[in-house]
């Protein structure tokens, strides 16, 4: 992989999210993080260590409490995410998500009142993209063809996760963020869905950041694992996770 500034998609320096409640403090610190275009990143750790917090910040849906530099390099150029947050330009962040991001959640995240086809097509429709068969192709690859006209409530958990993957990919985003996309399905299905997912992003040349608690499932998929360590204060009142890479 080439290392050139133009290929960097995320650049974070001293970004942190600190949350305190009931005398307990949780903090996630990112001293430095750079993600290249096309990279496949894995974030492995126990639940509660702050993986979701980092993913939400990378998806521009959670505001960092401290930051020195948080920039995102879209096709159009560099965007200062820190500035957008501090100026409360939430619609600017929404526009970035719409155009460049796909997000797969641990469960659901589907709209219960839309059928599978329309759920997958949601972002494409927002962007005014023509119906060029992408939705059908994705559905075929994900094994959802016969479910296209069903509502999510009629699907199994694994099928719903595949729909969520379809929706995250349908508008050909630059980045797909997946937060434990297979945690709610059985290990056998999880492995299948994960390798299908990684195979698809690879083929579409999409940057992917995936969080999981089980490295075992994904180590053979060729992902770069982000280094992190979690510290707890002796009285258990403070949890701090530091991620860098």
């Amino acid at each position, binding site marked *: 992989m080439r290392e050139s500034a133009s290929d960097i998609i995320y650049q974070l320096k001293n970004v942190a999210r600190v949350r305190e409640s009931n005398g307990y403090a949780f903090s996630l610190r990112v001293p430095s993080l750079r993600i290249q275009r096309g990279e496949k990143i894995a974030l492995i750790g126990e639940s509660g260590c702050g993986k*979701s917090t980092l993913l*939400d910040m990378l*998806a521009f*849906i*959670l505001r960092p409490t401290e930051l020195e530099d948080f920039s995102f390099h879209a096709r159009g150029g560099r965007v200062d995410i820190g500035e957008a947050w501090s100026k409360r330009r*939430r*619609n600017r962040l*929404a*526009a*970035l*998500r*719409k*155009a460049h*991001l796909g*997000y797969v*959640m*641990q*469960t*659901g*995240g*589907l*709209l*219960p*009142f*839309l059928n599978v086809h329309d759920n997958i097509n*949601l*972002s494409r*429709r*927002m962007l*005014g993209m023509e119906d060029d068969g992408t939705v059908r192709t994705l559905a075929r690859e994900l094994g959802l063809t016969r479910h296209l006209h069903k*509502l999510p409530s009629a699907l199994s958990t694994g099928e719903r996760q595949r729909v969520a993957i379809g929706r995250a990919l349908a508008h050909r985003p630059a980045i797909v963020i997946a937060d434990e996309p297979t945690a709610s399905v059985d290990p056998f299905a999880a492995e299948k869905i994960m390798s299908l997912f990684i195979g698809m992003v690879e083929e579409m040349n999409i940057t992917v950041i995936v969080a999981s608690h089980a490295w075992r499932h994904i180590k053979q998929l060729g992902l770069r694992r982000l280094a992190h360590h979690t510290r707890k204060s002796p009285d258990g009142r403070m949890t701090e996770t530091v991620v860098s890479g």
Partner: protein
Amino acid sequence: MLRQKRQILSLATRDYFHEWQISICFVLALAAVLGPMMVLFGLKFGIVGSMIEELVEDPVKREIRPVGSGHYDRVWMDKLHKRDDVAFIVPRIRSIASSLSAQSEAGGRILHLEVIPSAPGDPLLDASLPAPDGLDKVVLSASAARKLQLSAGDTLEGSLVRTWQGRKERVVLSLKIVAIAPATAFRRDGLFASVMLVEALEDFRDGHAVPALGWEGSPAVKERTYTGFRLYARSIYDVAALEDSFERSGIEVRTQAADIETVRRMDNTLSAIYWAIALIGLGGFSLSLGASLWANVDRKRKELSVLRLVGFRTGEIVLFPLVQGLYTGVFGWILACGIYLAAAWSINAMLAPQLEKAQKICRLLPEHYLIALGITLGAALLAAILAGMRAARVEPSEGLREL
């Protein structure tokens, strides 16, 4: 961004119909408040409306008559006539002079008729029939027409007697009946005549000459004064003010102001009661609608978070509960109209035997339905905007991981 607005509209619509059970509950809750409110207003409007209609339709209620006799001249009358709140005024002469004996070929008997000064636009007469005119065209009261067996188009022989210069004189004049007055206009035997004819009769009685009719006597009157007038206010609501103005200028008058005041006070009281109930109802209705929309935003946090996550703008997120609030408003209103119509129909059918034909105890005008719709949508919009602002504040990361 019109595309996304259209999209959110369609998403809100699909969600609304997808969750039809909940939506039906909202619609029922709304109609349960709005329907009875409309019935209540329909009753108030129907009852007070028919009372007022009775007052308005009966011209007698608008009449203002002077007590005793005075001296009024033409200029003063004309000035009154120009007032906006005066619909009709004609001068009246001494009552002793305003009578006529009448005889018809068919009736065979002599009838003593009161002569009532009239003019086109007389509220007592049917506006679609010809009015008394000139010295020979008159309108007969229904009772006189019956007794004389005369109808419109017939001719009447009127006779008039005076004692002048020691001699008893009698003149006869031929009058054409152009119309018969409605029975309610004048219950006794009477004759509606033009002011010109009434003046001629008075002049003859007083011994003056009436050249137009070829009656001889002392020279014609130059400056005429009248002893009274027939005056009708423009509407029942003008009667009290006109009465005041007469009393101020020292003319004692008799009116139906007390009756009118009773109905008006009743209207006010009923209106006040109605508005009190309506305001309480509206308040409760807005609160319940607001609370349900508000709670709905809470219930839909996850969906709204997903919409935020995929990149809908704040303004579009606000539209989501707004559109749903409008649906509830419109469907609730339609259902309430149905409830009202059913209730109004049964009330009217139940009370029909006690009512005059075409009279309705419970009724609404088309604009009342629209006002109800306007108020409903207003309340729904207000509640939905508050709910929508709450929806917009939902952090996408907050709702996403709720199961």
